[in-house]
């Protein structure tokens, strides 16, 4: 526990580490990406994931001022009397992708729902701690929740396009829902769909209903929808869990492209995915009690050289 705090108490620390780490792993990066076939032959060994983590194409990592973006400090969460999250502190900087991994029921989803105040929609929910966006506590008195959620977008596990709206209306729904003014809607529509990697597939059918798309396309439509309001942070709660490998790959490419301009937090059960797309990885675990953040570090570190035994056991597939 003390080790975690050491890692986390200074928000800038991991950033510096990562810069160093990036340089290092950049030099190690082999030409050519690891093929899926190669992964399979290597079985699930420690090396395969750390290789994936090292071979992952870097997001360019826009240089940013310290402390920018989103930061959670000592967040606890309860459902009724059940303590589900204990003392989570993490920071998410602009231009980075952070993956949250861990077995089911360890509180990952609960945690990201505390980050844009979706947690409070569960009637028995309670919370302690602070979440800062641009140094302002989003749980402070008098904060306009809707503005917070505009800045911190969310993509859900199940694709959920609005059934009564066309593809076009779905993408622009955020503008209408939040009553924003936009000069050129068509331009915004195209750029959002392009950024979500969906434009070429739907440009001729923008007036069809969103439900007519395949599952993977619907999920990318949901991503496009959340991009339309220009969020600073995008939270993704297992966005690929219901998708086929092709759609997953497409969404991972999307995440990589998006991470150049915003910060992304992604919950995933797929450790290959965490290794492929993220810059930082946080490992959550609950030992019967509340979920804790066991270890947080750069993705390369977590998958090749974790400090905690439990992290190593999990990422190497010894349990979970």
């Amino acid at each position, binding site marked *: 526990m003390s080790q975690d705090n050491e890692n986390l108490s200074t928000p800038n620390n991991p950033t510096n580490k990562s810069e160093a780490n990036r340089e290092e792993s950049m030099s190690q990066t082999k030409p050519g990406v690891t093929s899926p076939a190669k992964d399979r032959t290597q079985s699930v060994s420690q090396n395969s994931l750390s290789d994936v983590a090292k071979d992952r194409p870097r997001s360019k990592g826009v240089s940013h001022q310290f402390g920018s973006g989103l930061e959670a400090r000592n967040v606890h969460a309860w459902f009724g009397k059940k303590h589900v999250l204990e003392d989570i502190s993490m920071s998410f900087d602009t231009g980075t992708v952070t993956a949250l991994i861990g077995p089911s029921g360890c509180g990952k989803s609960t945690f990201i729902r505390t980050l*844009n105040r*979706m947690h409070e*929609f569960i*009637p028995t929910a309670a919370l302690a701690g602070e979440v800062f966006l641009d140094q302002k506590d989003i749980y402070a008195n008098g904060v306009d929740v*809707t*503005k*917070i*959620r*505009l800045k911190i*977008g*969310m993509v*859900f596990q*199940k694709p*959920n396009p*609005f*059934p*009564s*709206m066309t593809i076009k209306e779905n993408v622009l*729904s*955020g503008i*209408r*829902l*939040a*009553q924003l003014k936009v000069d050129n809607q068509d331009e915004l529509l195209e750029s959002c769909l392009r950024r979500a990697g969906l434009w070429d597939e739907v440009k001729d059918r923008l007036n069809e*209903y969103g*439900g007519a798309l395949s599952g993977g396309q619907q999920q990318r439509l*949901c991503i496009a*929808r*959340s991009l339309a*309001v220009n969020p600073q942070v995008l939270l993704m709660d297992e966005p690929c869990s219901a998708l086929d490998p092709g759609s997953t790959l497409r969404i991972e490419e999307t995440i990589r492209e998006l991470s150049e301009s915003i910060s992304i937090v992604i919950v995933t059960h797929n450790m290959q995915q965490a290794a492929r797309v993220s810059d930082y990885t946080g490992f959550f675990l609950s030992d019967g009690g509340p979920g804790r953040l066991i270890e947080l570090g750069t993705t390369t570190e977590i998958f090749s050289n974790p400090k905690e035994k439990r992290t190593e056991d999990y990422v190497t597939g010894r349990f979970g």
Partner: protein
Amino acid sequence: MSTLSLSAKPQRPWQPTFKSLIPDILGALFTAFATLAIVGISPLKGKLGFVIVLILMAVITTSVISWIRKDRKAALNSTSTVLVYVAAAFVIVPLASILWEIFTKGATGVSLNIFSNDMSATASDSPLTEGGLLHAIVGTVYLVLIASVVSTPIGILTALYIVEVKGKFAGIVRFFVQAMSGIPSIVAGLFIYAVWMIGLGNSYNAGAGAAALAILMIPTVARTSEEVLKLIPNDLREAGLAMGATQWRTVAMIIIPAAKSGLVTAVILGIARVAGETAPLLLTIGGADGLNLNPFSGNNSALPYYVWKNLGLGSEIAVQRAWLGVFVLIVVVFIFFTLARVLGAAKGSRK
């Protein structure tokens, strides 16, 4: 591969062929003959006896055929299939015969006259070619329209309060809505009569009747809307809220459009509940033989009221007028249903 796809034709191998249907056809013939024979020999006589024997024989024959051709599970499946068809017939046959009865007895008197005349200058015993239903049709349209306009927003907002706002009083409100839906219709009429007329000293008019009907319509609309709104997946609410929308914008732009066809159904069920009500109208609209275009002043009539009045007179022509009134009432209700569907599907409907 290409030759194969060229020679392939779309087929439906799961559909029964004539050959596989032979046992079923034979079974059906056997059932029919056996039923006739049993009714002929046994003391069971008449239509009722025939129907009972037919159902029994159909169940036995299909089950035995399935058992012989396949196994016990198939026999059970056939038995339940036949029973489901029988149950459906028990619903459809009375409904169809009621409609048929109304059509044969009511449609004979239909002429253009009835849509242009009222009964102010005609006695009920005069031939059907004289007089008409205009006053009653106008009265019913007023009543249903006003009652719908009042109870649709109240009913849907009540449902929104229970399902979306989940306010402190949601449980109590739901309880009262359920209690209200059990109110006998004459009590609603009495309530308006006691409060609106005796208490406040107003006289009979269509508005008072519509208020009584609204009391009956609100719980139907509210309960059906509540069920419909509960079916909207929570994902959609969260998606809307996560986009930075207020709760009101989420409800107005996402929940209601997604639930629209269900909400229209709620209103239609509400109309169906009140359009044929007679008891509350007896106490509130006063009845009239002449056309009254002002719904908020003076006695008015309505189709159910017209039917009730003519049925009470009892003469042959008056009863024919009553049937005519029933027929026109059904047509008017049908027009309301169609209107609600068309208006509900005007924009953005799915499927």
